[in-house]
C-alpha cells in the first residue's frame, strides 16, 4: 500500500574499497620511483635498488562518494628474486608492469611479466603497462628505444591499460593509478567492506572472487 519515492540524482552513501596492487618489472625501470611519486609526490634521483618488497598505502577519492585505497607492494626487480614474486601478485587485484622506454629489453621483460600474471595471477587482475622515464626522452628524443605506438599496440591486444609515465616529472603517474581505480570492481568490494565497523576491507578475499567477478555492473549503479 505504501508507495515509495527515491530521490534521483545522487546514489546514497559513500563507497570505500581496498585493493592490493603489485608493481613488477625489470630492475631499475623505476617501480619504486613511481610509488614514491604517487604516495609522497617526491622524486629521488639516486634510489637504491629495492631488496624485498616495500609496502605502502595510498587512498584516492574518485569522487565525493567513492574512495579507493591501494595497498601497494613494490617488489624487487632483480632476477635473483624473481621466484618470490608470486607471493605478491597472487592475491593482487591489480598490477602495474613497468618498463623503461629507453631500454628495449625492459619491455621484453615486462611482456614476460604480463604473460606470467595472465597465467598465474587472479583471473580478474587489472594490469597496467607503464613505460617509465618519459622525461629522458623529452630531453633527448634519440634516447627512446621503445616506440609509443608499439607498446600501445601490445597493450591493446593484451587488454592492458597503458601509460607513458615519468616519476621524475609526475607525468601520468596520478592518471595511471586513477585509471586502475576506475576499472576496479568497487561496487562488489565496497558492499562487503561496508557492512559495519567490524567489516573486513573489501576486495581482498580470493575466495569470493568468482562471485565478485561474476556479477556484472560497474561502479555507479543506481538503484532508483
Amino acid at each position, binding site marked *: 500500500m*505504501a508507495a515509495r519515492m527515491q*530521490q534521483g540524482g545522487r546514489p*546514497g552513501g559513500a563507497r570505500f574499497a*581496498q585493493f592490493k596492487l603489485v608493481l613488477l618489472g625489470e630492475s631499475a625501470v623505476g617501480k619504486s620511483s613511481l610509488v614514491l611519486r604517487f604516495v609522497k609526490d617526491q622524486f629521488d634521483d639516486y634510489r637504491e635498488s629495492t631488496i624485498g618488497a616495500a609496502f605502502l598505502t595510498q587512498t584516492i*577519492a574518485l569522487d565525493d562518494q567513492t574512495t579507493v585505497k591501494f595497498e601497494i607492494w613494490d617488489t624487487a626487480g632483480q632476477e635473483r628474486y624473481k621466484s618470490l614474486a608470486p607471493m*605478491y601478485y597472487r592475491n593482487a587485484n591489480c598490477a602495474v608492469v613497468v618498463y623503461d622506454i629507453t631500454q628495449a629489453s625492459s619491455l621484453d621483460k615486462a611482456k614476460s611479466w604480463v604473460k606470467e600474471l595472465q597465467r598465474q595471477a587472479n583471473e580478474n587482475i587489472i594490469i597496467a603497462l607503464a613505460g617509465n622515464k618519459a622525461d629522458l626522452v623529452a630531453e633527448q628524443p634519440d634516447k627512446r628505444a621503445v616506440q609509443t605506438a608499439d607498446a600501445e599496440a601490445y597493450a591493446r591486444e593484451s587488454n592492458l591499460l597503458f601509460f607513458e609515465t615519468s616519476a621524475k616529472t609526475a607525468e601520468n603517474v596520478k592518471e595511471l593509478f586513477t585509471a586502475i581505480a576506475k576499472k576496479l570492481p568497487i561496487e562488489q568490494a565496497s558492499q562487503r567492506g*561496508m557492512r559495519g565497523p567490524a567489516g573486513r576491507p573489501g576486495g581482498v578475499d580470493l575466495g569470493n572472487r568468482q562471485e565478485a567477478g561474476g556479477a556484472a555492473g560497474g561502479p555507479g549503479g543506481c538503484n532508483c
Partner: protein
Amino acid sequence: MAGEGTRARPPSTSVSTTSSLMQDVPGAFQASVNTSGPDRSDFVSLSQAIHARRSEYVRPKHIRIKVGSWNVAAYKGAEKDVGGWFVQGMGVAEALAGLKVTDQTQVHGENIPQQAGLDDREDVASQEARYHKKQSTLPRNDPGSIPGDSDIGLYVLALQEVVDINSVSEALRPYTDPSVANKWKDAMSASLPPGYSLIAESQLIGMLLLIYASPDVAKDVQSVSTTSVGTGIAGYMGNKGAVTARIVLGDTTRLVFIDSHLSAGTDKGALERRNWDAAQVVARTKFEPIKDSMGLNQSSGEQIGDEDFAFWCGDLNYRLEGIPGDDVRRLLMLHTRNEYDLSQRSARKIESELRSATEAVKHRVEDRLSVYSNGSSTPSSPARSAHDVRSSIDSRTSTDTPPTTIVDELAVSDDPTSLQTTLLSLLPHDELHQQMKLRAAFYDGWREGPINFLPTYKYDAGSVGVFDSSEKKRAPSWCDRILYRTRRDRLTYETKIQEEDDAKRKDDQMRASGLDHAGNDEEILYELYDPEADGVGEEYDEYDEAGENVVVTKEGFEDSIELEYYTAHQRVLSSDHKPLDAVFKLKYDCVIPELKAKVHAEVAKELDKSENEHRPSVTVVVDRHRSDSVASEENSDSDPATFDGVYFGNVRYATARHRYLTIANTGRVSATFSFIERPHGANTSSGLAPKWINLKLADMPSASSSKASQSVTLEPGDTASAELEVRIFDMHTMHALNEGLQELDDILVLRVEGGRDHFIPVKGCWLENTLGKSINRLVKIPEGGIRKLQRQKPGGSSSRSKSVREGGASRERSVSPPQSLQVSSAPRELYKLTTAIEELAGRVVAEWEMTHSSEEVGAYVLAPWQTHPAWPFDQQCWTERNGMQWQDALGEVSNALDCDEPLEQSLPPELPKMQRLYVLANLLMLFLEHMSDGIITASQWTEIKALMTETETSKRKPSLEEQRTAVQDILAQQPSHNISLIFVTSMLERIIAETTPTKRQKDDLVKKPAGTLRRFTGLGKLSAEVAEEESSLLAMARMFAEVVIRSEKVGSEKARIAVARRKAEVLVLFLRRGEGG
C-alpha cells in the same frame, strides 16, 4: 583463475605461533595489524576523521515546514479547497482563531499578508450561500493569512478519510485506488509554485500523506522511507492507524512525519483504544536502513524516536471529557454567531440552538454560585496562551472545580468576545492533554502549540460555525491536532524519567531502612513546588550551554526549530472537520558535497601520510664476517664484495659455520617481524629457510621447515639478532651438494608486520669431499686431495655444478682434471685412513696396557676391546658421537683427508687418543658405507656367491686357502678394489692381533713396519685366547662385510640374514689369511 595459480591455504591447524591465518599467505593483507591505532586509514577511521571536521563542510540552512492535517470525511470536492487552504493559507477566520503563535512584533513574519487585504474578503454569508460540492468553498478575495506558496520549503499534507473508511468495500479493497490520491496530487500540483516536487507519498485506505519540497530543499532530501501501520479492525486493518514518512535533510537531519487516524468514540474504552493505537504506531513503524553522514550502512532500520524532529498530526479523535456536549456547542456558538449577519440561515440556526439550552443552564448556575467563591476558579490570563501547552496542562492540577461550572459561568457572564477565556476553560477537558499529563499517550517529549482556535469537529458541512445540528448533536472536540517533538525533547523526557526512578528507588530504600518520614517530607516539598508559579517550565533548566533552541541531532549537528503558526481554517466548508496547519521554521546544517569532498581528500591524504610514516620499519644488517682464524685457507673466506646477503664462505662436511643478522627497529613504532615461508622456486626451497640452514631468531630456534616462525617485537631503537648456522651432516644433502644437484644458495624473507618484506639472500661455497665416491673416481684424485682438484677447476664449484646440470643427470660425474692424470693403484684416502687407525689403535692399546697393568687386581677395568669385539668400530664405543665436538672433529679429519693432509694432526690436540681413534673409525665406516660402488661391487659379489654355492655343493671341501684364492681371482679383475680390500683386512688383522694377547705376543717379536702386507702363521693355541680372537674376528667380519660388500637388496628378513652371513664368511677368509695351512 588459472589452475596452477590456485594454491591451497595452509590448514589452520598448521598455523602456530604467528598471529593470523592471513599472515601465512605471503603478500596478503595484514589485516590484524594496527587496527586499533588511530593512524590506519580503514573505512571507519576515515569516516570518523571526516565527521570530526563536519563544521567545515556544512552550512546552516533555514526553511519553513508547513504541516497540515484535515479529515475530509470522504466529502466529494474537498480537494478543491486544499490548494487555497494549505498552499495559499486562506480560510482563516481571525476572530475565531489566534493567528500567530509568537508575538506579532517579532520580525520573522516578513511575508505575512497585510491585514488590510482582509477587508476585501467575501463575507461568511455569501460564502456559505454559494456552498456547492463541485467548487472551492473558500472565501473569495482571501489574500491568505499565513505564509504559503514559495515561502515554504516543505509542505507536509496529512489527510484522513480520503475514502469512506466505514464502507466495507473500501476496507476489503485489495489495492489502493490511485485515482483518489491522484485527485489530491493534481489539486496540490495545480496550487504549488512551479518546481515543487512530490518527495514522499504514502496512503493507507483513508490516510494519505503527501510531502512536497521546493526545488532548493528537494536536492537536500535523501533516504526517503515511508511505512504504514494499521491499527483498526482486529488491531491490524487500515481503517485506523498511521502512514509515516522519514526523510533525511542535507545528510544531517532526520525528519519524521506521521499522519494518523486514531479510533473514534467518546467512551472510556474508545479513549484507551486511541492510546493503544498511538503506541502501536510507534512500536510497529520501522524505516528502511540509511547510510549515515559517515557513510556507514545501517544494519537495521530506524524507528520513531531515532529522528531529530518528528511531527505527528491527524485526526487523533481525542474528545472533550466531563462536560455536556450541548453546553459546549452552545458556548462555542455564542462565538461563532458573531461571524454571521443575523438574517442568515446559519445564524438563525445558531440562535435556535442557543435558546433551547440557555434556560436550563442558567438555573443550574444560580444554584452553584452560592457554593463556590468566584475568585478560585478564575482562569489564567490569556497572555499565557503563548506558552507551551504542557505548562498549561500542569497548571490545571489544582483545579478541582466541577467542570460544568466554568462553562456555565462563562455562559452567564455572556462575554462572547473573550474567545481565549472560553478556549482556556475548555482545554482542561481535552482528553489528549489529560492523557499526555497522565503519561498514557504522547508523553515522551511530544508538545503542541497553543490552541487558540475553535474545536475542529464537528460542523455542518457548508457552514463556517454551525456545530453539528443533526440528531446526534456531536459534542465539539479538538479531534484534529498537530504535535511535534525534537530529539532534545525526547532526551529530556528520558532524563526526567530516569531521575524520577532514581528518586523513587532512593525513597524506597529509605523507607526500607525505617525512615518512613523521609518520603513524606519529599512529598511536601513537591507540593510546595509549583512549576507554574516559578514561571518557566522546569525542563528548560536542563539545557545548559547548548543554547535554548539548539537541538543536537543524532549525528551531532546543531539544528533548531521554532513553531510560528498553529491554527485552524474555520472558513473551509467542505468537510465536517476544519483543516488545521502549523508552520515551523527549521534551521539545519546542510552538507555541501563539494566542501565535503575537499575535506574527504584532505583527510585521506593525512591518514595515508600518517599511516605510511608510522609504518613499522626495521633495518637488517648482515654482520660482516672477518676472516681471521680461517684466513689460512687458500680460498678467500670473506664475503665477496659484490654479494649483499649472508655469505657463509666455504662450507665443509660436518663443520658448522655461523653468521649473524642484526635487526634494528629504525622506525617510529614498535615492529613485529618474523621469517615467513617462501614459495618453492628455482633456487629456493619451501619452508622458512632451506634445510641446510638452522635459523635461530633472538635465541629461539625456528625449525626451518615449519610454516610459521616465532615473531619478535621490537620497540623503536631496539635490536634483535638472528643466527644462521650451516652444518652439513646429513648424508643425503651432502651427496646432493657433492653431485651439484643442490647449491648453497637461497633467499630468506623477513616480514615486518604492517611493513615491508626484506629479502635476505644466503649463500655458501660447498667444498666437495671424498665421501660417497666410487673407487674409480677416488683413484684419480691427485696428490693434494680432492680439494686441490676443485680449486684447479675454473670458476670453482658453482660453474662445475652448472655444467653438470646442463650435461644431464649423470650421477657419475667426471672429476677429471684436464690433462695427464696420475692414477693411483688404490684410493689414497682409504690407505691413509686405515693406516692411521691401525697405528692409533696400536698406541691406544699400548697406552692402556701401561696405565692399567700396575693396577691392583680388585680394581681391574676391562679394556673396551674386551667388552666390544668389534672395537674400535662398534658404534657402542662411540659414546661422544652426538656431541658438537665429535662433529667438529669429524669435519676436521674429513677435511684433512680431502686436502691430503696428515689426519691425526688435524684433530684438536686436547682430544683424547681414544676419542681420536673413534672419530677416525667413524669416518672410515662412513667412507666405506657411502662409497658409491663398494670395495666388492655388486657384480663381483654375484660371482663370489656363485663360487661359494658351487663350493658348498661340491664333494670335496676346498681349503680356506683355495677358497680365498678363488675369491681373489674374482677381485683381481679390478685391482684397485682388490688393493682396497687388502687395506681394510690388513688393518683389521692388525687390530685383532693387538687386542688379543696371543697374537700380540707374537707380533711383539716380529716387528713389522706398519702399513705393509704381513703374513704370519698361527702359534700355540690356547683355547681361551682362541675364543677371544675368534669372537673379535667374527664381529669384525660381520661389521665390515656390510660396508665393504655391495649386493642387491634382499626382501625378507631371513634372506637378509643369510646374505649377511655369507658376506661375513667371505671376509673371514681374508682375516684368516695365516691359517690356511
